[in-house]
């Protein structure tokens, strides 16, 4: 299974390298939460970001480093963009052509009103960047610009190491 996953990864990387357009699926916040909150062996790292958010763009390389550290281990990084749905073609896709974003990028579709923000984490005021790390019933949340060392600490916290 691991080999299949790794080869899929390799294929997707080479496709990206060949200049294929990145797939950026629209994912409703409820679907995203269902996906990461379903108990499994996988540690989910979700980064809420946007192309217009300066500290978000600055911290992307910190996230790019995670995959290398956890190769073969069940850590999945999801870069959840909060760009507006009508800006996928005009902003998100061009951004991904010009910047290295190693992990899966999704466009987060959010309901109006902002109640979903506390549903992601009660400590989240809504400022981005924000990062949520989940493993089974353990979660760790951080609002603000993050670095690789802090990410490693948070992953350590939820993995119960």
């Amino acid at each position, binding site marked *: 299974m691991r080999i299949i996953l790794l080869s899929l990864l390799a294929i997707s990387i080479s496709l990206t390298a060949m200049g294929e357009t990145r797939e950026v699926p629209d994912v409703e916040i409820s679907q995203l939460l269902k996906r990461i909150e379903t108990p499994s062996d996988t540690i989910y790292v979700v980064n809420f970001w946007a192309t217009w958010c*300066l*500290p978000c763009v600055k911290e992307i390389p910190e996230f790019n480093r995670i995959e290398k550290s956890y190769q073969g281990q069940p850590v999945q990084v999801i870069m959840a963009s*909060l760009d507006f749905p009508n800006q996928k073609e005009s902003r998100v896709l061009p951004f991904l052509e010009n910047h290295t974003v190693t992990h899966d990028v999704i466009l987060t579709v959010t309901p*109006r009103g902002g109640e979903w*923000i506390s549903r992601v984490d009660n400590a*989240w*005021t*809504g*400022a981005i*960047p924000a990062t949520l790390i989940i493993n089974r019933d353990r979660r760790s949340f951080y609002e603000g610009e993050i670095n690789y060392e802090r990410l490693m600490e948070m992953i350590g916290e939820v993995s119960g190491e």
Partner: protein
Amino acid sequence: MKTFKYVMMMTLALVTFTAGAQLKVGDKAPGFKLKNIDHQWVSLDDYKDQKGVIVVFSCNHCPYVVLYESRMIELQKKYEPKKFPLIAINPNDSTIVPADGFSYMITNAAEKGFNFPYLLDDKQLFKKFGATRTPHVYLLKNEGDHFTVAYIGAIDDNPQDASDVKEKYVAQAIDALLAGQKPKVTETRAIGCTIKFRE
């Protein structure tokens, strides 16, 4: 016993920190005196004869702020005559975001036709309020000798499309206060840009 004392001290320190970090609805609003884009000083005391004040932590560069600028102008048009004027305060450090510097505040206000004061928060007032993002609204109610917080959060429920707003949180809260009632919604969350500052 020593350990107990230590734990108590740490708990107290933590509680104090939390209390100082986040203003809650019903809390007394901290006073301020900050420089406006016309180079005059504006203080909360200047608003003693008003029924309340709409304080918006704002800036120039944040796309979410930009989406709300015209709605801030509309709020001022509608509620300043009803004694609920709006004050925008820029808490961002221009050594981190040059576009949020004082000179750019002046040009931005002129270009967009701001009809409200736009103050430079060089004293980290935002920390006393507990503001974390732009835009971040604190609706203050005049209680006679001080102001209390009546609402904290977003201007309305749809940043992207002003024509498709269903809940005008700030306007509804002011209307309630003007009618002598408590606002139905006193706290909302919304996506915004982090406030950029140095410790």
